[in-house]
């Protein structure tokens, strides 16, 4: 039987929705038992949220001041010490999980399957390669312990309704002193989160300036949407890096994605393949973004976007 350990991502107070998506991914394995481990300075609040997820059989907590900020060099040895009995060790394919899970895999000597989009069996997985332009089916031999990151855009979050027991554990490991946390920029909290928003308005190089990019925020406010950006817009300083959507930014699956002044490079499209409805606004009728758009509108965004905002008022 598969015993799956999921490493919870959280900010000290809230469980990140990526964790509930890992639970859904794990639940696809018939008969699997799912354990979530919460490593934190003070894990109680987050552990309670994990225990309430439907499908979770057990929650482990590791309380340690060293876990206040999630750093792979600290978390990995603790998780590895707890992971011996588990067949699969999973985390979300967020920057948290991408940083951490390979370090755990290395300590376990386990191969990692990155960006799992489907678990076909305990030994067979599907994942995207080449910026999502091919999907590979990967197999490991029976009985091999596997680490993995879960492509969050491929799964819906597990709902509540669980009531798993919570147990505190203390892995016997010495933690390193070679890595020190300095700071993290505070996430802007008044807008919907890009990774979980139902609607996303995304701007590209065509916005021309940080000032121009404000058009995106204005439209997003009208729609209750999160704001995204192409790499070109981020590189040019029109939008902060955490808004980048794509192969090397965030991979998202909103119900509505509106791409404005974005050409639709392969690397950008990788990030939006799972969006339910894609709208493209671009002045170039030949722009590749139109090949994937459900609704396309050719024209000057500086005229069209204010019109849309007005129509929505």
């Amino acid at each position, binding site marked *: 039987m598969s015993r799956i350990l999921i490493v919870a991502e959280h900010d000290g107070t809230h469980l990140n929705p990526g964790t509930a998506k890992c639970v859904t991914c794990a639940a696809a394995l018939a008969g699997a038992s799912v354990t979530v481990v919460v490593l934190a300075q003070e894990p109680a609040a987050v552990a309670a949220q994990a225990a309430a997820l439907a499908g979770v059989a057990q929650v482990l907590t590791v309380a340690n001041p060293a876990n206040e900020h999630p*750093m*792979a060099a600290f978390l*990995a040895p603790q998780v590895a010490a707890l992971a011996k009995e588990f067949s699969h060790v999973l985390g979300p394919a*967020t*920057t948290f999980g*991408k*940083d951490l899970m*390979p*370090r755990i*895999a*290395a*300590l376990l*000597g386990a*191969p*990692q399957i*990155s*960006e799992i989009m489907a678990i076909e069996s305990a030994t067979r997985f599907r994942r995207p*390669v*080449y910026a999502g*332009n*091919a*999907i*590979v*089916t990967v*197999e*490991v*031999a029976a009985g091999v312990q596997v680490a993995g990151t879960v492509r969050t855009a491929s799964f819906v979050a597990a709902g509540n309704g669980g009531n798993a027991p919570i147990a505190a554990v203390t892995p016997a490991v010495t933690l*390193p002193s*070679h*890595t*020190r*946390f*300095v*700071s*993290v920029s505070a*996430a802007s909290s008044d807008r919907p989160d890009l990774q979980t928003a139902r609607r996303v308005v995304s701007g590209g190089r065509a916005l021309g300036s940080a000032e121009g990019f404000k058009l995106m925020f204005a439209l997003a406010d009208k729609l209750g949407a999160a704001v995204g950006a192409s790499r070109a817009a981020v590189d040019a300083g029109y939008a902060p*890096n*955490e808004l980048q959507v794509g*192969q*090397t930014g965030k991979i998202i699956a909103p*119900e*509505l994605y509106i791409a404005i002044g974005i050409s639709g490079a*392969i690397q950008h499209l990788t990030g939006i*393949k799972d969006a339910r409805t*894609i*709208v493209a606004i671009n002045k170039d009728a030949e722009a590749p973004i*139109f*090949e*994937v*758009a*459900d*609704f*396309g*509108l*050719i*024209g000057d965004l500086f005229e069209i976007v204010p*019109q*849309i905002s007005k*129509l*929505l008022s």
Partner: protein
Amino acid sequence: MKRILVGIKRVVDYNVRIRLKPDGSGIVTDGVKMSINPFDEIALEEALRIRERGAAEEVIAISIGSGDAQQQLRTALAMGADRAILVETGSGTEGALEPLAAAAVLLKLVEREQPMLVILGKQAIDDDNSQTGQILAALWDRPQATFASKVELSGTVARVTREVDAGLETLEVDLPAVLTTDLRLNEPRYVKLPDIMKAKKKPLEVLPLASLGVATAAKTRVVRFDPPPQRQKGVMVKDAAELVAALHAKGLV
């Protein structure tokens, strides 16, 4: 000697639209443009800048792959690497090492060269694994600072700004350490013709994989390559009003 090791993976150029082999055994690489993984160019550029500031003395470009990867190593030498090492594997899918194995190979070279820094890309754009740097750091029992967008060295400490989902995070790590690069760390320089000539004289050492005595047997097996699900091409609308009406009809606004 203060050394920096840089990973240089040979990959299908990022501008190429890849095609699958009809039998699903892999992607078509015959006649396809190959390049240095873009994140590795950024890694090399960062290493060169550190050396040019006097904080390091030697930059070594390392590739694990078939003999063809010598082309990418020559490019790395032309960009400014001092020497290069090719760990030669078989060609094709059979030759490609998993991240666990690639990291084990890199660790061997780390033990030999004793670098102050290893700079790798945050991901290879072919397998999109994003694992090798983290695995190497764990095997080496040293710090990792992944997805770096800014690196400041002072003495035996690196202060690294990382691109994370929340925004930017800053860590301080003791050297030696492993860094992986994000896109905004720097803009790699262009190679100039005289540098290409000079690079031909720089040392490029070829080590057969077997000579390293590293266990590199694959633990995973790719069963099949499939095309991704295609999106249906949609409809064009003529103006903002029609667009809003269409979205309204679908209950999206």
